[in-house]
């Protein structure tokens, strides 16, 4: 695979599949990787997402949950962080339990630019689509830089998976791993003229990253997080305000989008109080 191959991929048609859980790996208390036994090859591309629901959930919780693909293929996987009822159920699921996955959905990461250095900036569970991208880049012979931040050492799931395939730099707010502080404390040094940035994580982090990139005229692509009901463009529940005015719909015109277009001062993702992470 080369960067050109990454650029020329067609998006696969969307489909609702029924897939039993194949494996569940718990990482700390709050994070889990769920791998599904798909009936056929899932041709998702890095940055795309899937709407996930337990086939036996009944009437409540009602809606599927949007989750970025961590990997595609015959055993597609997601990385979840436990928040509310839906992710609690996912975190309890045992292999064999049937799930429904609608996907692949959404606009993937913009294809990398030949000759640029890719800098991937992630926070917590936002690492999922970035790890997918980092693997693609590694396959294409690149060695991206990944800047990965969390509140503490337990907020950095998948960091071991990143080690071989990128130049990894870690920050934690409590200093328990890597540099003490936030990704934005380190980002400045890394933003050279030939960089292009991909970011996914808490809204406030992405807003800060987007601002630093804009100031330095570095291209920055962000993956948006908003509540979603359908994931495929019909409910109009996922608007994200744009600087140019109006909205884009995160599920079909995102989640990956040029960060400069986003009005980061507008509320779109609910602020989430983190109760269950770390330990």
């Amino acid at each position, binding site marked *: 695979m080369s960067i050109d191959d990454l650029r020329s991929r067609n998006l696969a048609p969307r489909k609702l599949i029924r897939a039993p859980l194949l494996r569940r790996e718990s990482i700390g208390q709050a994070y889990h990787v769920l791998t599904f036994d798909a009936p056929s090859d899932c041709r998702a591309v890095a940055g795309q997402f899937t709407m996930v629901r337990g086939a036996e959930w009944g009437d409540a919780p*009602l*809606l599927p949950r949007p989750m970025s693909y961590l990997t595609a293929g015959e055993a597609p996987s997601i990385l979840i962080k436990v928040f509310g009822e839906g992710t609690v159920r996912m975190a309890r699921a045992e292999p064999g339990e049937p799930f429904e996955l609608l996907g692949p959905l959404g606009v993937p990461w913009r294809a990398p630019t030949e000759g640029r250095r890719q800098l991937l900036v992630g926070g917590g569970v936002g690492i999922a689509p970035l790890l997918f991208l980092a693997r693609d880049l590694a396959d294409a012979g690149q060695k991206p830089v990944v800047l990965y931040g969390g509140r503490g050492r337990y907020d950095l799931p998948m960091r071991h998976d990143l080690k071989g395939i990128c130049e990894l730099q870690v920050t934690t707010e409590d200093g328990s791993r890597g540099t003490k502080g936030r990704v934005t404390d380190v980002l400045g040094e890394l933003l050279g003229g030939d960089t292009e940035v991909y970011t996914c994580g808490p809204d406030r982090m992405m807003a800060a990253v987007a601002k630093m990139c804009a100031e330095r005229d570095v291209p920055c692509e962000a993956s948006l997080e908003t509540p*979603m009901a359908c994931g495929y*463009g019909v409910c*109009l529940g996922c608007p994200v305000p744009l600087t140019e005015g109006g*909205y884009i719909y995160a599920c079909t015109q995102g989640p990956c989008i040029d960060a400069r277009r986003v009005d980061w001062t507008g509320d*779109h993702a609910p602020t989430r109080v983190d*109760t269950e992470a770390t330990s």
Partner: protein
Amino acid sequence: MSRESVTVGSLELRNAVLTASGTFGYALEYDDFFDVAELGGICTKGLSLHPRPGNPPERICETAAGMLNAIGLANVGVEAFCTDKLPLLRERGVTVIANIFASSVADFVTITKRLDAEAGVHAIELNVSCPNVAEGGIEFGKDKKMCAQVTAAVKGATKIPVWVKMSPEAAEIAAVGKACEDAGADALTAVNTIRGMAIDSQLSRVRLKNRTGGLSGPALKPIALRIVWDLVEAVSIPVIGIGGISTTRDAIEFLMAGATAVQVGTANFVDPCAASKIRAGIQEYCEQKNVTVRELIGSARR
């Protein structure tokens, strides 16, 4: 007539399963999933005279066996619908019900006339009951005089059948339905959402930017079923049932209560093929029991 077909006034539908406005986009989003022309019909997202951006986020949130939405009737406007969407729907042979919305009788009429100029609009559904916009919306729907006035005005402006969508918040819903019938409505659709709200106790704040949103999904079903029953009692035009229909059984319950057809709404978000599966499920049920869909209608009333 096939085992599956039903008749709504002068309109014969392939089958009794339609999709509900605002939960199925413009039906052009389903190419990957199934051929929407197989359905009894599709109701478009509510169309207004001019395009509307809709409410600021958050627009949706989940509740027990349901969800709240305050989309604010974001839509492309009737003009763009007629030029960009309708021709494609016509080409595919889709039965199109144009759901329309305005804050004045005059605008309802203007939108209607625009639609009347096009081929391929099989019915117009008047959304006089949207709870999520400041002006108009539910105010029409709660008041039988205003409902009747809009209905009569729209009927006067088109030959296309006119359906009126009932608000479950009207205190005397049977009277509102009767008033619409008297004003010439060809059918009633029931129900739209009921206003609810949600609070995030961790942040101590209201979840939806619009504060309130319309409750839809299975939680709404028992209320919708009761209203459909009452309307069928009150009027002699067809009533189309909506509210929390997720399974074949749910749809059959509405038919048994007297609905001539049903609309599938929130269930589309859980499974884009929900309406198609329900259609197939009803067909299978009727084959097994050797009945027609028309025989199911109102069977729990007998």
